[in-house]
């Protein structure tokens, strides 16, 4: 009998092309997702070396970071010159190298990590990479998925492999049931709050436990998406009926007998009884509250009932970092989090731009108006999410409440396109990073769930969504 394996071990073992004596492996990559920001230098490298894309049929490109989200975005004047050049370079590279492509004009265009699963490119047991740290999202399917730099993008384009050393195994278990008003976003932020942004460094996390099992695929993607914010190379959730149901019938998912064959293998993708984890973290689902971030690192997480901490509450280098954060964020130690006034609300991103996220926000907003003077926008994660939300009547709820209803893209999550915070503006955002300047120069970001973002839009300050339910 072979030693018990973790889910990570099983996927890893199925993809090793070659292993050196020191443990360095050549790992085969099943899906390579590409966007316009981290790929032009890689394609240029191929061109200069006279190389081709080894597996264009396994390579999928979509522009998302730079694209405007206003309704008139097909007008080139909506983009800055350098953004236009970057998107045009992707258009050209996709055509020249013959890879799968969803241009801005295609209704299927959207954020790369939303388009991949939606189109059935992402399947259980695969290895998935992209020149983007939030590739961790795809781990929700039980796929080993992580971000890479541009040199590695070029390496995967040329060879369909990556040179890798195996990470350690970490288990994050969320036991029990979540309470009403608590979502996948609160789970993933609470985990980072518990482990710190460096806590996962060197590990691949497997999320498990009843609260994770109870999540939809959308919720699982939210959890895995922010594995990177905890420092982990990847996050994984073992596939189950929820996964198979989501995958079945998607355009690029297997059909008929092939689906049955795939399913038989997918059902072997779980962590064996007794498999070894190098680190285990357990949180009780019932104890997780709706959370918000107060600082400029995703680990700066507190329950909404909390107060802004004092730098002296921390140890070591974090004392100075906390002092800097509190000053940057314009807060005072001891201030109640619910007293923090918000002027901007952003709902969207690869973390929370899926249909379920829009439903959760719309459920809070139905029949209500956003606070006077509030700037609020919804940026669906893909053109198809947008279409579905319109069909379900969610778009009308958002518009009637006073939200702008935008086209798909990364938008204000990283503010590479025109959707940005101005200096000093303060945003309740469903995105994944609250770094200094992330959403615009001197902009201030509080990370929250979609329901919490909707609540803040109505009241004008950070709010416990449970009071509006």
């Amino acid at each position, binding site marked *: 009998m072979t030693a018990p394996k973790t889910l990570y071990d099983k996927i890893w073992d199925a993809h090793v092309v070659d292993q050196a004596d020191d443990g360095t492996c050549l790992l085969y990559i099943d899906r390579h997702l590409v966007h316009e920001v981290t790929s032009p230098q890689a394609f240029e490298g191929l061109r200069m070396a006279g190389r081709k894309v080894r597996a264009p049929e396994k390579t999928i490109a979509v522009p998302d970071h730079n694209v405007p989200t206003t309704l008139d975005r097909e007008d080139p004047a909506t983009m800055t010159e350098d953004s236009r050049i970057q998107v045009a370079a992707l258009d050209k590279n996709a055509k020249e190298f013959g890879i799968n492509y969803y241009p801005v004009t295609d209704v299927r265009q959207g954020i790369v990590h939303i388009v991949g699963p939606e189109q059935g490119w992402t399947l259980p047991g695969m290895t998935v990479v992209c020149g983007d740290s939030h590739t961790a999202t795809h781990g929700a399917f039980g796929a080993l998925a992580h971000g890479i730099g541009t040199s590695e993008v070029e390496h995967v384009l040329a*060879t369909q492999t990556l040179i890798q050393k195996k990470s350690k195994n970490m288990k994050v278990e969320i036991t029990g049931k979540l309470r009403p008003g608590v979502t996948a976003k609160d789970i993933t932020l609470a985990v980072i709050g518990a482990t710190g942004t460096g806590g996962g460094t060197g590990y691949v996390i497997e999320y498990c436990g009843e609260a994770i099992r109870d999540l939809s695929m959308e919720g699982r993607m939210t959890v895995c998406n922010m594995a990177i914010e905890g420092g982990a190379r990847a996050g994984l959730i073992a596939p189950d009926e929820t996964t198979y149901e989501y995958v079945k019938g998607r355009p690029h998912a297997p059909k008929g007998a092939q689906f049955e064959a795939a399913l038989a293998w997918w059902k072997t993708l779980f962590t064996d009884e007794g498999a070894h984890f190098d680190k285990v973290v357990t949180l009780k689902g019932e104890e997780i509250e709706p959370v918000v971030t107060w600082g400029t690192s995703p680990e700066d997480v507190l329950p909404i009932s909390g107060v802004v901490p004092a730098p002296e509450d921390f140890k070591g280098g974090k004392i100075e970092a906390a002092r800097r954060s509190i000053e940057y964020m314009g807060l005072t130690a001891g201030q109640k989090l619910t007293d923090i006034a918000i002027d901007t609300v952003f709902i969207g991103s690869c973390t929370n731009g899926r249909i379920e996220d829009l439903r959760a926000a719309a459920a809070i907003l139905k029949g209500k108006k956003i606070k006077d003077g509030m700037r609020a926008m919804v940026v669906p994660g893909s053109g198809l999410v947008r279409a579905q939300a319109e069909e379900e009547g969610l778009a009308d709820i958002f518009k009637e409440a006073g939200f702008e209803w935008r086209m798909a893209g990364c938008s204000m999550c*990283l503010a*590479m396109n025109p959707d940005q915070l101005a200096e000093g503006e303060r945003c309740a955002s469903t995105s994944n990073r609250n770094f200094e300047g992330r959403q615009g120069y001197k902009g201030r970001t509080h990370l929250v769930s979609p329901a919490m973002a909707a609540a803040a839009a109505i009241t004008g300050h950070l709010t416990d969504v449970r009071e509006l339910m």
Partner: protein
Amino acid sequence: MEKFETVTGIAAPMPLVNIDTDMIIPKIFLKTIKRSGLGVNLFDEMRYDRQGNEIPDFVLNKPQYREASILVAGDNFGCGSSREHAPWALADFGIKVIISTSFADIFYNNSFKNGMLPIVLPQEQVDALMKDAEKGANARMTVDLENQIITSSDGVEFPFEVDAFKKHCLLNGLDDIGLTMEKESSITAFEGAAAQARPWV
């Protein structure tokens, strides 16, 4: 890639923890389709005011650190996005070595691909080297990759660990793609077997 040889140079202290890739190179500079020329915008929002004037207090603007080739940094350096623009900017500025208690995974890997050496040391040793760096331009450190030793300005030696394969590539300036291409037949064999075992992929 240029070969990594022994580096002797000025070390700049950046004790802040969680220095993220948005700090290292803000997103407005990611709209380039080239790898070069990012050094001038390294740490842009910490280094310049809105009018583009240098902020004198920022470490790399201080006369004694303008020529730094080594950074001694706080924990979890390079966290955040996968942008290789971060190591491109550091390398373009002239940084060859970064010393910290830990690095974010993707940044760590990206650094090696650009001829830069990230070194992980325990807290007390990083603290000692931070103090050394704070002495300024006269305190020059030496980083010897071959022998895996950092020598501080007053001659104290700090041995460090580095992955053998990554060390080999850095010392010889090897390009990963070229190395992998030599294993082309293994890749083809893997693809054949995988097409049988998992034809739906």
